[in-house]
């Protein structure tokens, strides 16, 4: 309907009340200026203008001095029935992402009516992020896969026929057996994605019991490098568990916890607003880096050099914890010599971070007692991911912040089985003969061989290549459980071609997507609201067992364990659990803790007592029982055991010729708060928050290219092109563009990312630092 006033900002017209003048004259006395300004805009533009106006244009910067007492956790008894709605309340664990936050699920008349944070949870302090709060929308999504189905049209055509579970599992087992007979035992692989509770680890048990290799799509690019480095140097995952509650300084490296670890952000923000200073290493000014007291805007892919710069200052200025280093660390002199090669002039040149800032940050981190650090996926997608992770995991050791309150803690799950327990993983079934057939075993020992610190998985791009050319053996079938391969790994063109070349594909998923469309048999998985779970999760908490409880069930979806167990039974894979109930498996996981699933369900979880300086008893979990600044494992593998900078394969320095044609550095994979990886775009209320992928580009760079804010752009690399929308921000370096990942179709950044050049030892792809050019879409 055409209105009679035009918005000064967006130009749309809207209707104003005829008596607005009268209304205004009645009310204007107090805030007339504000009203005049805002009422000249359409209602949609007003909130933004209101915000910008209130924050003010005449800005006077004063040092941040805010001291707010930290939020407390309410002591509450578990509530079984909600007084207000009469709904039954389930204490559960949210797995809309892999954070595993405590949540309350409100169920009434067989429907979930609400999902909320659990105010009695010390992990989340009652909060829940926007994704978790929208879980109900995933449960009742129109794209849900609700029944087992078989494909009746061409592959990818989208024509399905509903079948029974028995028929689906029988068919899958029969076809897999047929392929195995025809092409050999290695012709079938399994694939999974991000850990959501304990089940992705269970897939490894299934793979080992079945005698097949498996791949985790993100593993080499996310978590494995930092867990490996932590395991080799510290003998555990202390670098994953910062204790924000008692710290005096926070160092965040390559992470944006407000978006991807919301429960960590709660404690981080509580500490920060109570006055604890924060250092953030991030190439873009984003949610977390905007709060930083010292923000180090580094050139993407140069984390190892910056880390060595930190170590250079800490050792060179004698700021390290001499007593701890002398007593508990080996290889200090070698590290010192290496760090001396990285004087701050050199580091500034490599990283683009002013040396004064590096010095200030390193001093602040090293002299604050206690200090904690967290690092994440940002440092695991460059040219040498193990190196950058080695540099960061050493920091808490050098500064004596290991396993002390307010520092970085080793997890305290006493007796709970985990992925390091061979009774659980069945890793002993990977015999040397089987091991050598895992794709990538020779080239990437820390990913694909038994040298791996956790469990061997096949290397992504080697696997796609093998599917396409049949070397060294044919791969003809795949069991995909919970990963969107057609979107979420680099070189989408190769991945989709490889999948289409297969004879048989089984996909287990929650929602329909373009990977599921390629399946022959489609199996419906349960969302977290429909399945039981028991998990110890270092990324959620260092000392708690959390549980998930099924509140409802949509269609014929089954729990992940039940699906794998049902298939294993038909395949004759031994050592698996009965498919009827998940309880025997949970009790097996809990066996050594003295707890059972029934007890946990009654209690709503279990928290172990805090224990600090655990190393004083038996040393660190490394071969020397000490912190190995020079890793004996790395030495054994015959590689440089110390961190070192390795220039990205493509960069203005390494490939100046290519940089003439492709002048911008493209960095991708920065997480958004409303989506987890490829998930969430079909949840409409989340999609409204970010309807399309926005490429961050500096205004000066955009101006040179004739690109305006919000315009559609084309990003090109030697591999191909993709499309996005420009978001002009001064928060990014003029030579860098940042693209969000995991969008589908032409907006998929993996269409332009290379997957051939991979980091040594673990085979990570260089998603954070390649070269591109950008133009306006005509």
């Amino acid at each position, binding site marked *: 309907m055409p209105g009679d006033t035009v918005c000064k900002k967006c130009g749309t017209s809207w209707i104003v009340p005829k008596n607005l003048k009268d209304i205004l004259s009645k009310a204007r006395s107090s805030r007339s200026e504000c009203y005049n300004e805002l009422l000249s805009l359409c209602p949609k533009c007003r909130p933004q203008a209101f915000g910008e106006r209130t924050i003010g244009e005449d800005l006077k910067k004063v040092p941040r001095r805010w001291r707010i007492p930290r939020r407390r956790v309410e002591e509450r008894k578990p509530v079984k029935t909600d007084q207000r709605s009469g709904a039954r309340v389930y204490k559960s664990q949210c797995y809309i992402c892999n954070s595993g936050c405590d949540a309350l699920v409100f169920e009434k008349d067989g429907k979930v009516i609400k999902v909320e944070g659990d105010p009695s949870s010390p992990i989340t302090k009652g909060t829940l992020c926007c994704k978790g709060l929208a879980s109900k929308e995933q449960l009742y999504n129109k794209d849900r896969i609700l029944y087992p189905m078989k494909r009746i049209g061409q592959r990818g055509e989208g024509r399905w026929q509903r079948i029974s579970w028995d028929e689906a599992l029988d068919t899958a087992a029969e076809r897999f057996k047929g392929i195995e007979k025809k092409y050999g035992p290695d012709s079938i692989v399994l694939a999974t994605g991000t850990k959501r509770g304990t089940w992705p680890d269970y897939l490894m048990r299934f793979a080992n019991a079945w005698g097949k290799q498996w791949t985790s799509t993100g593993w080499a690019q996310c978590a494995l490098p930092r867990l490996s480095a932590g395991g080799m140097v510290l003998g555990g995952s202390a670098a994953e568990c910062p204790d924000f509650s008692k710290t005096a300084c926070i160092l965040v490296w390559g992470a944006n916890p407000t978006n991807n670890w919301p429960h960590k952000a709660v404690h981080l923000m509580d500490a920060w607003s109570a006055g604890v200073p924060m250092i953030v290493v991030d190439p873009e000014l984003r949610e977390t880096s905007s709060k930083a007291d010292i923000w180090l805007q580094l050139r993407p892919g140069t984390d190892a050099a910056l880390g060595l710069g930190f170590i250079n200052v800490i050792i060179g200025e004698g700021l390290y914890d001499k007593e701890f280093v002398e007593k508990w660390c080996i290889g200090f002199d070698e590290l010192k010599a290496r760090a001396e090669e990285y004087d701050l002039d050199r580091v500034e040149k490599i990283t683009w971070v002013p040396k004064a800032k590096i010095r200030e940050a390193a001093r602040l981190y090293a002299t604050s007692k206690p200090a904690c650090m967290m690092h994440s996926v940002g440092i695991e997608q460059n040219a040498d991911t193990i190196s950058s992770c080695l540099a960061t995991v050493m920091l808490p050791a050098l500064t004596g912040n290991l396993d002390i309150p307010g520092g970085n803690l080793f997890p305290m799950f006493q007796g709970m089985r985990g992925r390091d327990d061979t009774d659980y993983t069945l890793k002993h079934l990977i015999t040397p003969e089987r091991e050598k057939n895992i794709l990538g075993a020779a080239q990437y020992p820390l990913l694909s061989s038994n040298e791996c610190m956790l469990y061997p998985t096949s290397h992504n791009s080697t696997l796609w290549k093998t599917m396409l050319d049949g070397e060294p053996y044919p791969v003809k079938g795949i069991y995909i459980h919970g990963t969107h391969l057609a979107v979420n790994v680099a070189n989408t063109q190769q991945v989709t071609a490889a999948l289409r070349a297969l004879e048989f594909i089984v996909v287990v998923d929650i929602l329909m997507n373009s990977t599921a469309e390629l399946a022959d048999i489609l199996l419906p998985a349960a969302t977290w609201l429909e399945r039981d779970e028991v998990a110890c999760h270092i990324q959620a908490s260092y000392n708690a067992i959390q549980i998930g409880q099924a509140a409802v069930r949509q269609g014929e979806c089954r729990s992940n364990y039940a699906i794998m167990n049902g298939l294993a039974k038909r395949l004759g894979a031994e050592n698996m659990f009965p498919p009827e109930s998940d309880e025997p498996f949970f009790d097996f996981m809990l066996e050594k803790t003295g707890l059972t699933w029934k007890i946990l369900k009654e209690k709503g979880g279990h928290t172990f007592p805090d224990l600090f300086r655990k190393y004083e008893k038996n040393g660190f979990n490394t071969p020397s029982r000490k912190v190995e600044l020079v890793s004996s494992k790395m030495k054994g593998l015959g590689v440089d055991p110390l961190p070192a900078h390795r220039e990205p394969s493509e960069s203005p320095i390494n490939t100046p010729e290519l940089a003439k044609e492709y002048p911008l550095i493209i960095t991708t994979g920065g997480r958004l708060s409303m989506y987890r990886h490829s998930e969430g775009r079909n949840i409409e209320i989340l999609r409204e928050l970010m309807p399309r992928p926005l490429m961050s580009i500096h205004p000066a760079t955009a101006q040179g290219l004739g690109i305006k804010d919000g315009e559609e752009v084309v990003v090109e690399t030697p591999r191909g092109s993709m499309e996005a929308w420009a978001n002009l921000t001064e*928060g990014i370096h003029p030579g860098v563009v940042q693209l969000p990942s995991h969008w589908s179709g032409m907006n998929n950044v993996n269409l332009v990312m290379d997957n051939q050049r991979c980091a040594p030892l673990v085979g990570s792809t260089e998603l954070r630092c390649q070269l591109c050019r950008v133009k306006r879409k005509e």
Partner: protein
Amino acid sequence: MNQKEKKMLVVLDCCVGCHACEIACRQEHDLTHETGSKWCRVMTVKPRRVRDELYLDYFPTMCVHCDAPLCLESCPIGAITKREDGLVLVNGEKCNGCRLCISACPYGAMSFNEVTQAAGKCDFCLGRAEFGIEPSCVQHCIGGALRYVGPEELNEVTKGKHTAFFEKVCYASSQWKLVS
């Protein structure tokens, strides 16, 4: 809970732009995608350069419950009322869907629900308050920016800080001189 004394305190320093409040609000008040309605939103104030340093801010907005509400004045049928405790409330059942209040609200806080065909806006989770539970946006705020507080706590937290009072909502910042 005595709502008269209470104010929504927005500590701008602590807002991390995560949108948890927005989705919490939509879930609490059943504002599905189809309703096209939002009572709480988080705006991003893009990075600005001040004396060679960059600042990026987030700004949650909601109804401020004006003392002389323009929405109330504009409503031809008296579906909007100002309660004695200061809350401005919309009677959705009475609303005739004329949308005049939406045009009249300078803050863009009034929202039209396409499903119920009625106007609606933030009521500080009245339904929760009756049971002594804090508003959903406050409970789920990751950064701890939203606080529903009495006068004592408000004074304590904002002491020495820049503030901007909008009746029932108080914005506070340690960095920026706010404009009300």
